[in-house]
Protein backbone atom coordinates (compact mmCIF):
# COMPACT_ATOMS: atom_id res chain seq x y z
CA UNK A 1 0.00 0.00 0.00
CA UNK A 2 2.89 2.30 0.71
CA UNK A 3 4.06 2.10 -2.90
CA UNK A 4 0.63 3.10 -4.14
CA UNK A 5 0.54 6.24 -2.04
CA UNK A 6 3.72 7.54 -3.62
CA UNK A 7 3.06 9.91 -6.53
CA UNK A 8 5.04 7.91 -9.07
CA UNK A 9 4.31 10.20 -11.99
CA UNK A 10 5.70 13.10 -9.95
CA UNK A 11 8.94 11.21 -9.31
CA UNK A 12 9.25 10.17 -12.94
CA UNK A 13 8.53 13.72 -14.09
CA UNK A 14 11.24 15.13 -11.82
CA UNK A 15 13.70 12.41 -12.80
CA UNK A 16 13.21 13.21 -16.47
CA UNK A 17 13.58 16.94 -15.76
CA UNK A 18 16.76 16.37 -13.73
CA UNK A 19 18.35 14.22 -16.42
CA UNK A 20 17.41 16.69 -19.15
CA UNK A 21 18.81 19.64 -17.20
CA UNK A 22 21.96 17.73 -16.25
CA UNK A 23 22.45 16.64 -19.84
CA UNK A 24 21.80 20.15 -21.13
CA UNK A 25 24.19 21.80 -18.70
CA UNK A 26 26.91 19.24 -19.47
CA UNK A 27 26.27 19.67 -23.19
CA UNK A 28 26.39 23.44 -23.01
CA UNK A 29 29.56 23.23 -20.91
CA UNK A 30 31.13 20.88 -23.48
CA UNK A 31 30.44 23.27 -26.27
CA UNK A 32 31.41 26.24 -24.13
CA UNK A 33 34.98 24.90 -24.27
CA UNK A 34 34.71 24.85 -28.04
CA UNK A 35 33.12 28.31 -28.03
CA UNK A 36 35.82 29.68 -25.79
CA UNK A 37 38.54 28.47 -28.12
CA UNK A 38 36.70 29.85 -31.13
CA UNK A 39 36.12 33.23 -29.48
CA UNK A 40 39.73 33.42 -28.39
CA UNK A 41 40.88 32.55 -31.89
CA UNK A 42 38.62 35.07 -33.59
CA UNK A 43 39.70 37.81 -31.23
CA UNK A 44 43.32 37.06 -32.02
CA UNK A 45 42.72 36.88 -35.80
CA UNK A 46 43.07 33.09 -35.83
CA UNK A 47 40.68 30.33 -36.88
CA UNK A 48 40.48 28.14 -33.79
CA UNK A 49 39.64 24.42 -33.84
CA UNK A 50 38.73 23.52 -37.40
CA UNK A 51 40.01 19.99 -38.02
CA UNK A 52 37.76 17.68 -35.99
CA UNK A 53 34.47 17.67 -37.85
CA UNK A 54 32.85 20.67 -39.54
CA UNK A 55 34.04 23.91 -37.87
CA UNK A 56 35.88 21.72 -35.35
CA UNK A 57 32.58 20.80 -33.72
CA UNK A 58 33.87 17.38 -32.64
CA UNK A 59 36.85 18.95 -30.86
CA UNK A 60 35.36 18.85 -27.32
CA UNK A 61 34.51 15.15 -27.80
CA UNK A 62 38.05 14.45 -28.98
CA UNK A 63 39.37 16.34 -25.95
CA UNK A 64 37.16 14.31 -23.64
CA UNK A 65 38.30 11.01 -25.16
CA UNK A 66 41.91 12.14 -24.90
CA UNK A 67 41.52 13.01 -21.22
CA UNK A 68 39.89 9.62 -20.52
CA UNK A 69 42.78 7.69 -22.05
CA UNK A 70 45.54 9.70 -20.39
CA UNK A 71 47.61 8.05 -17.69
CA UNK A 72 46.26 8.63 -14.23
CA UNK A 73 48.95 9.95 -11.92
CA UNK A 74 48.50 10.36 -8.16
CA UNK A 75 51.64 11.80 -6.54
CA UNK A 76 53.17 9.49 -3.90
CA UNK A 77 53.02 12.12 -1.15
CA UNK A 78 49.48 13.17 -1.97
CA UNK A 79 46.56 12.40 0.27
CA UNK A 80 44.81 9.92 -2.00
CA UNK A 81 41.30 10.28 -0.60
CA UNK A 82 41.26 14.08 -0.64
CA UNK A 83 43.06 14.11 -3.98
CA UNK A 84 40.17 12.24 -5.58
CA UNK A 85 37.53 14.03 -3.50
CA UNK A 86 38.64 17.46 -4.79
CA UNK A 87 37.57 17.21 -8.44
CA UNK A 88 34.52 15.14 -7.53
CA UNK A 89 33.34 17.86 -5.18
CA UNK A 90 33.99 20.56 -7.78
CA UNK A 91 31.89 18.67 -10.33
CA UNK A 92 29.15 17.77 -7.83
CA UNK A 93 28.59 21.34 -6.67
CA UNK A 94 28.70 22.63 -10.23
CA UNK A 95 25.87 20.29 -11.19
CA UNK A 96 23.85 20.83 -7.99
CA UNK A 97 23.28 24.55 -8.42
CA UNK A 98 21.09 24.01 -11.48
CA UNK A 99 18.32 22.52 -9.32
CA UNK A 100 16.64 25.81 -8.43
CA UNK A 101 16.83 27.64 -11.75
CA UNK A 102 13.37 28.06 -13.30
CA UNK A 103 13.87 27.10 -16.94
CA UNK A 104 10.40 28.06 -18.10
CA UNK A 105 6.84 28.73 -16.95
CA UNK A 106 4.83 25.79 -15.65
CA UNK A 107 2.90 23.79 -18.23
CA UNK A 108 -0.75 23.10 -17.39
CA UNK A 109 -1.90 19.90 -19.05
CA UNK A 110 -5.53 19.25 -20.04
CA UNK A 111 -5.85 16.73 -17.23
CA UNK A 112 -5.28 19.59 -14.82
CA UNK A 113 -1.80 18.45 -13.95
CA UNK A 114 0.83 21.24 -13.66
CA UNK A 115 4.38 20.43 -14.73
CA UNK A 116 6.92 22.88 -13.33
CA UNK A 117 10.03 23.41 -15.45
CA UNK A 118 12.11 23.72 -12.31
CA UNK A 119 13.49 20.83 -10.31
CA UNK A 120 12.75 22.38 -6.92
CA UNK A 121 10.97 25.64 -6.24
CA UNK A 122 12.33 26.10 -2.74
CA UNK A 123 11.54 29.38 -1.03
CA UNK A 124 15.22 30.04 -0.26
CA UNK A 125 16.37 29.33 -3.81
CA UNK A 126 19.03 32.01 -4.07
CA UNK A 127 20.39 31.14 -0.63
CA UNK A 128 20.68 27.52 -1.77
CA UNK A 129 22.71 28.66 -4.80
CA UNK A 130 25.03 30.65 -2.55
CA UNK A 131 25.48 27.68 -0.24
CA UNK A 132 26.27 25.27 -3.05
CA UNK A 133 28.67 27.68 -4.73
CA UNK A 134 30.49 28.17 -1.43
CA UNK A 135 30.96 24.43 -1.09
CA UNK A 136 32.50 24.51 -4.58
CA UNK A 137 35.48 26.35 -3.12
CA UNK A 138 36.20 23.24 -1.03
CA UNK A 139 36.75 21.28 -4.22
CA UNK A 140 39.57 23.63 -5.17
CA UNK A 141 40.87 23.88 -1.60
CA UNK A 142 41.00 20.12 -1.07
CA UNK A 143 42.57 19.51 -4.45
CA UNK A 144 45.26 22.09 -3.87
CA UNK A 145 45.98 20.88 -0.36
CA UNK A 146 45.99 17.16 -1.14
CA UNK A 147 48.41 17.59 -4.06
CA UNK A 148 51.27 18.31 -1.62
CA UNK A 149 52.65 20.87 -4.04
CA UNK A 150 53.44 24.45 -3.13
CA UNK A 151 52.02 25.86 -6.36
CA UNK A 152 48.79 23.96 -5.86
CA UNK A 153 48.59 25.17 -2.28
CA UNK A 154 49.22 28.77 -3.34
CA UNK A 155 46.51 28.44 -5.96
CA UNK A 156 43.98 27.03 -3.54
CA UNK A 157 44.79 29.62 -0.87
CA UNK A 158 44.23 32.31 -3.45
CA UNK A 159 41.00 30.69 -4.58
CA UNK A 160 39.67 30.50 -1.03
CA UNK A 161 40.53 34.05 -0.05
CA UNK A 162 39.24 35.40 -3.34
CA UNK A 163 35.98 33.51 -3.05
CA UNK A 164 35.42 34.64 0.54
CA UNK A 165 36.22 38.28 -0.25
CA UNK A 166 33.95 38.49 -3.24
CA UNK A 167 31.11 36.45 -1.78
CA UNK A 168 30.64 39.26 0.75
CA UNK A 169 30.16 41.95 -1.90
CA UNK A 170 28.05 39.57 -3.95
CA UNK A 171 25.78 38.84 -1.01
CA UNK A 172 25.37 42.50 -0.08
CA UNK A 173 24.61 43.50 -3.67
CA UNK A 174 22.01 40.76 -3.74
CA UNK A 175 20.40 41.95 -0.49
CA UNK A 176 19.50 45.20 -2.27
CA UNK A 177 17.82 43.16 -5.00
CA UNK A 178 16.01 40.98 -2.48
CA UNK A 179 14.71 44.07 -0.67
CA UNK A 180 13.00 45.07 -3.90
CA UNK A 181 11.63 41.65 -4.77
CA UNK A 182 10.79 40.67 -1.21
CA UNK A 183 11.40 36.98 -1.87
CA UNK A 184 14.28 34.49 -2.09
CA UNK A 185 12.48 32.10 -4.43
CA UNK A 186 13.89 32.25 -7.95
CA UNK A 187 10.55 31.33 -9.54
CA UNK A 188 8.92 34.25 -7.72
CA UNK A 189 11.73 36.65 -8.76
CA UNK A 190 11.26 35.66 -12.39
CA UNK A 191 7.48 36.08 -12.18
CA UNK A 192 7.94 39.61 -10.88
CA UNK A 193 9.96 40.48 -14.00
CA UNK A 194 7.09 39.42 -16.26
CA UNK A 195 7.19 40.90 -19.76
CA UNK A 196 9.49 43.79 -20.47
CA UNK A 197 7.74 47.13 -19.85
CA UNK A 198 5.17 47.95 -17.21
CA UNK A 199 4.00 51.11 -15.41
CA UNK A 200 6.43 53.28 -17.38
CA UNK A 201 9.57 51.40 -16.48
CA UNK A 202 11.41 48.20 -17.42
CA UNK A 203 10.35 45.16 -15.43
CA UNK A 204 13.76 43.50 -15.56
CA UNK A 205 15.82 43.91 -12.41
CA UNK A 206 18.86 45.17 -14.26
CA UNK A 207 17.02 48.45 -14.85
CA UNK A 208 15.97 48.64 -11.21
CA UNK A 209 19.35 47.64 -9.76
CA UNK A 210 22.04 48.73 -12.26
CA UNK A 211 24.76 49.21 -9.65
CA UNK A 212 23.83 45.97 -7.93
CA UNK A 213 24.05 44.20 -11.27
CA UNK A 214 27.55 45.49 -11.99
CA UNK A 215 28.78 44.49 -8.52
CA UNK A 216 27.15 41.08 -8.86
CA UNK A 217 28.69 40.60 -12.31
CA UNK A 218 32.20 41.49 -11.15
CA UNK A 219 31.84 39.17 -8.18
CA UNK A 220 30.56 36.41 -10.47
CA UNK A 221 33.76 36.71 -12.48
CA UNK A 222 35.76 36.33 -9.28
CA UNK A 223 33.65 33.41 -8.03
CA UNK A 224 34.09 31.60 -11.33
CA UNK A 225 37.89 32.03 -11.15
CA UNK A 226 37.79 33.44 -14.66
CA UNK A 227 40.00 36.12 -16.15
CA UNK A 228 40.56 38.90 -15.11
CA UNK A 229 40.32 37.16 -11.70
CA UNK A 230 41.87 33.79 -12.63
CA UNK A 231 44.56 34.09 -9.97
CA UNK A 232 44.02 30.58 -8.55
CA UNK A 233 45.33 29.07 -11.78
CA UNK A 234 47.52 31.94 -12.97
CA UNK A 235 49.65 30.05 -15.51
CA UNK A 236 52.43 32.62 -15.60
CA UNK A 237 52.88 32.54 -11.82
CA UNK A 238 51.75 29.19 -10.43
CA UNK A 239 52.34 26.68 -13.26
CA UNK A 240 48.67 25.72 -13.31
CA UNK A 241 47.56 26.65 -9.80
CA UNK A 242 45.45 24.22 -7.83
CA UNK A 243 45.34 21.55 -10.56
CA UNK A 244 49.10 21.42 -11.20
CA UNK A 245 49.36 17.79 -10.03
CA UNK A 246 46.19 16.57 -11.68
CA UNK A 247 46.07 14.48 -14.81
CA UNK A 248 43.63 12.47 -16.84
CA UNK A 249 39.91 12.81 -16.17
CA UNK A 250 40.43 14.33 -12.72
CA UNK A 251 41.95 17.34 -14.45
CA UNK A 252 39.11 17.11 -16.94
CA UNK A 253 36.60 17.28 -14.08
CA UNK A 254 38.18 20.47 -12.74
CA UNK A 255 38.22 22.14 -16.13
CA UNK A 256 34.76 20.89 -16.96
CA UNK A 257 33.29 21.95 -13.62
CA UNK A 258 34.50 25.44 -14.38
CA UNK A 259 32.44 25.51 -17.57
CA UNK A 260 29.38 23.97 -15.92
CA UNK A 261 29.71 26.70 -13.29
CA UNK A 262 29.96 29.27 -16.05
CA UNK A 263 26.71 28.04 -17.57
CA UNK A 264 24.84 27.87 -14.26
CA UNK A 265 26.12 31.28 -13.12
CA UNK A 266 25.05 32.80 -16.41
CA UNK A 267 21.62 31.23 -16.04
CA UNK A 268 21.30 32.58 -12.49
CA UNK A 269 22.52 36.02 -13.55
CA UNK A 270 19.90 36.05 -16.29
CA UNK A 271 17.25 34.82 -13.87
CA UNK A 272 18.04 37.47 -11.28
CA UNK A 273 18.70 40.49 -13.47
CA UNK A 274 17.57 39.89 -17.05
CA UNK A 275 14.10 38.53 -16.51
CA UNK A 276 14.87 34.82 -16.79
CA UNK A 277 12.60 33.34 -19.46
CA UNK A 278 10.56 36.54 -19.83
CA UNK A 279 10.63 38.39 -23.12
CA UNK A 280 8.86 41.42 -24.62
CA UNK A 281 5.27 40.86 -25.84
CA UNK A 282 5.14 37.47 -24.12
CA UNK A 283 1.44 37.88 -23.24
CA UNK A 284 0.50 38.26 -26.92
CA UNK A 285 2.60 35.20 -27.77
CA UNK A 286 1.08 33.19 -24.92
CA UNK A 287 -2.42 33.97 -26.20
CA UNK A 288 -1.76 32.70 -29.70
CA UNK A 289 0.10 29.39 -29.12
CA UNK A 290 -0.53 26.29 -27.02
CA UNK A 291 0.97 26.27 -23.49
CA UNK A 292 3.57 23.62 -24.39
CA UNK A 293 4.83 25.62 -27.36
CA UNK A 294 4.86 28.76 -25.22
CA UNK A 295 6.95 27.00 -22.58
CA UNK A 296 9.33 25.79 -25.27
CA UNK A 297 9.71 29.36 -26.54
CA UNK A 298 10.40 30.56 -22.99
CA UNK A 299 13.07 27.90 -22.47
CA UNK A 300 14.61 28.89 -25.79
CA UNK A 301 14.62 32.56 -24.77
CA UNK A 302 16.33 31.73 -21.48
CA UNK A 303 18.92 29.59 -23.28
CA UNK A 304 19.62 32.37 -25.80
CA UNK A 305 20.07 34.92 -23.04
CA UNK A 306 22.32 32.51 -21.12
CA UNK A 307 24.49 31.86 -24.15
CA UNK A 308 24.80 35.61 -24.74
CA UNK A 309 25.92 35.94 -21.14
CA UNK A 310 28.47 33.13 -21.58
CA UNK A 311 29.78 34.90 -24.68
CA UNK A 312 30.08 38.11 -22.68
CA UNK A 313 32.11 36.25 -20.05
CA UNK A 314 34.36 34.98 -22.82
CA UNK A 315 34.78 38.40 -24.45
CA UNK A 316 35.85 39.82 -21.11
CA UNK A 317 38.28 36.95 -20.52
CA UNK A 318 40.10 37.60 -23.77
CA UNK A 319 40.09 41.38 -23.36
CA UNK A 320 41.37 42.15 -19.89
CA UNK A 321 44.69 41.05 -18.41
CA UNK A 322 44.83 39.39 -15.01
CA UNK A 323 44.68 41.52 -11.86
CA UNK A 324 47.59 41.53 -9.48
CA UNK A 325 46.75 39.95 -6.14
CA UNK A 326 46.81 43.19 -4.12
CA UNK A 327 44.73 44.90 -6.78
CA UNK A 328 42.22 42.08 -6.54
CA UNK A 329 41.94 42.44 -2.78
CA UNK A 330 41.79 46.25 -3.01
CA UNK A 331 39.00 46.07 -5.54
CA UNK A 332 37.07 43.57 -3.46
CA UNK A 333 37.38 45.08 -0.01
CA UNK A 334 37.87 48.80 -0.68
CA UNK A 335 35.64 49.31 -3.69
CA UNK A 336 33.01 46.64 -4.17
CA UNK A 337 31.95 46.10 -0.56
CA UNK A 338 31.50 49.85 0.22
CA UNK A 339 29.73 50.28 -3.12
CA UNK A 340 27.43 47.37 -2.36
CA UNK A 341 26.69 48.82 1.09
CA UNK A 342 25.89 52.24 -0.41
CA UNK A 343 23.69 50.55 -3.00
CA UNK A 344 21.87 48.71 -0.23
CA UNK A 345 21.29 51.94 1.72
CA UNK A 346 20.04 53.81 -1.36
CA UNK A 347 17.69 50.96 -2.24
CA UNK A 348 16.36 50.88 1.31
CA UNK A 349 15.82 54.65 1.33
CA UNK A 350 14.00 54.54 -2.01
CA UNK A 351 11.79 51.68 -0.86
CA UNK A 352 10.85 53.48 2.35
CA UNK A 353 10.42 57.06 1.12
CA UNK A 354 9.64 56.86 -2.59
CA UNK A 355 7.83 53.65 -3.31
CA UNK A 356 5.67 53.78 -0.18
Amino acid sequence: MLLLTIDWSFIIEKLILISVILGASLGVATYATWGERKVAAWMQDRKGPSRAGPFGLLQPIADGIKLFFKEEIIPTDANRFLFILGPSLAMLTACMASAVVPWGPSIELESGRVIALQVADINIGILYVFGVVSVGVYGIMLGGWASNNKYSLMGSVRAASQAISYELAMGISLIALLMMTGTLSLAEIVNQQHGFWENGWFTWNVAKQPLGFIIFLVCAFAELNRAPFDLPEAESELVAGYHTEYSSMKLGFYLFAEYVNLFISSAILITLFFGGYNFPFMDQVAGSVSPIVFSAICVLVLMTKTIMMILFFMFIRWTIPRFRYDQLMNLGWKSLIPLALVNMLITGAIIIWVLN
Partner: protein
Amino acid sequence: MQELTNKRVAVDRKPMTFMERLYIPTIIKGLFITVGHIFKKPATISYPEQQRPFSPVFRGLHILNRDEQGREKCTACGLCALSCPAEAITMEAAERVKGEEHLYKEEKYAAKYEINMLRCIFCGLCEEACPKDAIYLSETVAQANYSRKSFIYNKEDLLIPNPNETH
Protein backbone atom coordinates in the same frame (compact mmCIF):
# COMPACT_ATOMS: atom_id res chain seq x y z
CA MET B 1 74.37 61.38 -23.09
CA GLN B 2 73.27 61.84 -26.65
CA GLU B 3 70.20 59.87 -27.58
CA LEU B 4 70.37 57.43 -30.45
CA THR B 5 66.73 57.78 -31.43
CA ASN B 6 63.92 60.16 -30.63
CA LYS B 7 61.64 57.30 -29.65
CA ARG B 8 62.13 57.55 -25.89
CA VAL B 9 58.87 57.94 -23.99
CA ALA B 10 58.82 58.77 -20.29
CA VAL B 11 56.79 56.28 -18.25
CA ASP B 12 53.70 57.90 -16.80
CA ARG B 13 53.61 57.06 -13.10
CA LYS B 14 50.85 59.44 -12.07
CA PRO B 15 48.25 57.87 -9.78
CA MET B 16 45.12 56.79 -11.60
CA THR B 17 42.34 59.33 -11.90
CA PHE B 18 38.85 58.57 -10.70
CA MET B 19 37.64 57.72 -14.22
CA GLU B 20 40.53 55.32 -14.66
CA ARG B 21 39.89 53.70 -11.31
CA LEU B 22 36.32 53.01 -12.37
CA TYR B 23 37.84 50.53 -14.87
CA ILE B 24 34.53 50.14 -16.67
CA PRO B 25 34.99 52.83 -19.41
CA THR B 26 38.39 51.40 -20.30
CA ILE B 27 37.01 47.86 -20.22
CA ILE B 28 34.29 48.88 -22.69
CA LYS B 29 36.91 50.54 -24.88
CA GLY B 30 38.95 47.31 -24.79
CA LEU B 31 35.86 45.25 -25.60
CA PHE B 32 35.25 47.33 -28.71
CA ILE B 33 38.78 46.58 -29.91
CA THR B 34 38.63 42.83 -29.25
CA VAL B 35 35.09 42.37 -30.55
CA GLY B 36 36.09 44.36 -33.64
CA HIS B 37 38.78 41.78 -34.29
CA ILE B 38 36.13 39.03 -34.45
CA PHE B 39 34.97 40.44 -37.79
CA LYS B 40 38.45 40.68 -39.26
CA LYS B 41 39.82 38.09 -41.62
CA PRO B 42 41.98 35.54 -39.77
CA ALA B 43 45.65 35.58 -40.67
CA THR B 44 45.80 31.78 -40.53
CA ILE B 45 46.98 29.74 -43.52
CA SER B 46 45.52 26.23 -43.25
CA TYR B 47 48.83 24.62 -43.96
CA PRO B 48 48.51 21.32 -45.79
CA GLU B 49 45.67 22.60 -47.99
CA GLN B 50 46.94 26.14 -48.45
CA GLN B 51 50.62 26.86 -48.78
CA ARG B 52 52.40 30.10 -48.48
CA PRO B 53 54.63 30.81 -51.52
CA PHE B 54 58.34 30.86 -50.83
CA SER B 55 60.24 34.05 -51.48
CA PRO B 56 62.21 34.02 -54.76
CA VAL B 57 65.51 33.96 -52.89
CA PHE B 58 64.52 31.00 -50.69
CA ARG B 59 67.32 28.46 -50.26
CA GLY B 60 66.10 24.97 -49.45
CA LEU B 61 67.36 21.43 -50.03
CA HIS B 62 69.99 20.88 -52.70
CA ILE B 63 69.38 19.10 -55.97
CA LEU B 64 71.92 17.72 -58.41
CA ASN B 65 71.04 18.72 -61.93
CA ARG B 66 71.03 16.74 -65.20
CA ASP B 67 71.28 18.07 -68.76
CA GLU B 68 68.56 17.75 -71.41
CA GLN B 69 69.55 14.19 -72.24
CA GLY B 70 69.34 13.17 -68.62
CA ARG B 71 73.10 12.99 -68.03
CA GLU B 72 74.57 14.04 -64.69
CA LYS B 73 76.22 17.42 -64.94
CA CYS B 74 78.48 17.13 -61.91
CA THR B 75 82.16 16.56 -62.68
CA ALA B 76 83.29 16.19 -59.08
CA CYS B 77 85.61 19.16 -59.33
CA GLY B 78 85.24 19.78 -55.60
CA LEU B 79 84.65 23.53 -55.83
CA CYS B 80 81.38 23.24 -53.94
CA ALA B 81 83.07 21.33 -51.13
CA LEU B 82 85.83 23.91 -51.08
CA SER B 83 83.42 26.85 -50.94
CA CYS B 84 81.26 25.26 -48.26
CA PRO B 85 81.77 27.22 -45.02
CA ALA B 86 80.17 24.45 -42.96
CA GLU B 87 82.18 21.67 -44.61
CA ALA B 88 79.07 19.69 -45.24
CA ILE B 89 79.91 18.33 -48.69
CA THR B 90 82.12 15.33 -49.45
CA MET B 91 82.58 13.59 -52.77
CA GLU B 92 84.63 10.96 -54.54
CA ALA B 93 85.45 11.33 -58.22
CA ALA B 94 85.57 8.57 -60.82
CA GLU B 95 86.47 8.41 -64.49
CA ARG B 96 83.82 7.74 -67.08
CA VAL B 97 84.43 4.48 -68.96
CA LYS B 98 83.26 3.62 -72.44
CA GLY B 99 79.55 2.95 -72.66
CA GLU B 100 78.65 5.37 -69.84
CA GLU B 101 78.31 8.42 -72.10
CA HIS B 102 74.57 8.39 -71.66
CA LEU B 103 74.95 8.60 -67.86
CA TYR B 104 77.55 11.30 -67.33
CA LYS B 105 78.01 14.46 -69.32
CA GLU B 106 81.81 14.75 -69.02
CA GLU B 107 84.75 12.41 -68.60
CA LYS B 108 84.86 12.74 -64.84
CA TYR B 109 81.89 12.26 -62.55
CA ALA B 110 81.02 12.00 -58.85
CA ALA B 111 80.92 8.37 -57.79
CA LYS B 112 79.94 9.39 -54.30
CA TYR B 113 78.41 12.74 -53.36
CA GLU B 114 77.17 13.43 -49.85
CA ILE B 115 75.79 16.48 -48.10
CA ASN B 116 75.32 16.42 -44.35
CA MET B 117 72.10 18.37 -43.88
CA LEU B 118 72.76 18.77 -40.16
CA ARG B 119 75.96 20.66 -40.94
CA CYS B 120 74.65 22.57 -43.94
CA ILE B 121 73.70 26.19 -43.26
CA PHE B 122 71.90 26.64 -46.59
CA CYS B 123 74.05 29.62 -47.54
CA GLY B 124 73.99 28.77 -51.25
CA LEU B 125 77.75 29.21 -51.78
CA CYS B 126 77.98 25.77 -53.42
CA GLU B 127 75.39 26.89 -55.94
CA GLU B 128 77.45 30.00 -56.67
CA ALA B 129 80.75 28.11 -56.86
CA CYS B 130 79.60 25.40 -59.28
CA PRO B 131 81.09 25.99 -62.75
CA LYS B 132 78.82 23.36 -64.38
CA ASP B 133 75.42 24.51 -63.05
CA ALA B 134 75.16 21.09 -61.42
CA ILE B 135 73.98 21.98 -57.91
CA TYR B 136 71.00 24.11 -57.05
CA LEU B 137 69.12 24.95 -53.90
CA SER B 138 65.44 24.08 -54.34
CA GLU B 139 62.28 25.24 -52.58
CA THR B 140 61.84 22.24 -50.27
CA VAL B 141 62.96 21.77 -46.70
CA ALA B 142 64.63 18.75 -45.13
CA GLN B 143 62.20 16.17 -43.73
CA ALA B 144 62.28 15.44 -40.05
CA ASN B 145 63.82 12.11 -39.16
CA TYR B 146 64.81 9.93 -36.21
CA SER B 147 68.54 9.35 -36.75
CA ARG B 148 71.48 11.60 -37.44
CA LYS B 149 72.64 9.23 -40.14
CA SER B 150 69.50 9.77 -42.17
CA PHE B 151 70.38 13.43 -42.57
CA ILE B 152 73.46 12.57 -44.66
CA TYR B 153 71.95 12.77 -48.14
CA ASN B 154 73.76 10.75 -50.78
CA LYS B 155 73.77 11.15 -54.54
CA GLU B 156 70.53 9.19 -55.07
CA ASP B 157 68.69 11.50 -52.67
CA LEU B 158 69.97 14.63 -54.34
CA LEU B 159 69.76 13.81 -58.05
CA ILE B 160 66.67 15.02 -59.85
CA PRO B 161 64.77 12.23 -61.63
CA ASN B 162 65.93 11.42 -65.13
CA PRO B 163 63.46 13.09 -67.55
CA ASN B 164 64.09 10.41 -70.21
CA GLU B 165 63.44 7.44 -67.97
CA THR B 166 59.84 6.29 -68.06
CA HIS B 167 58.53 4.83 -64.88
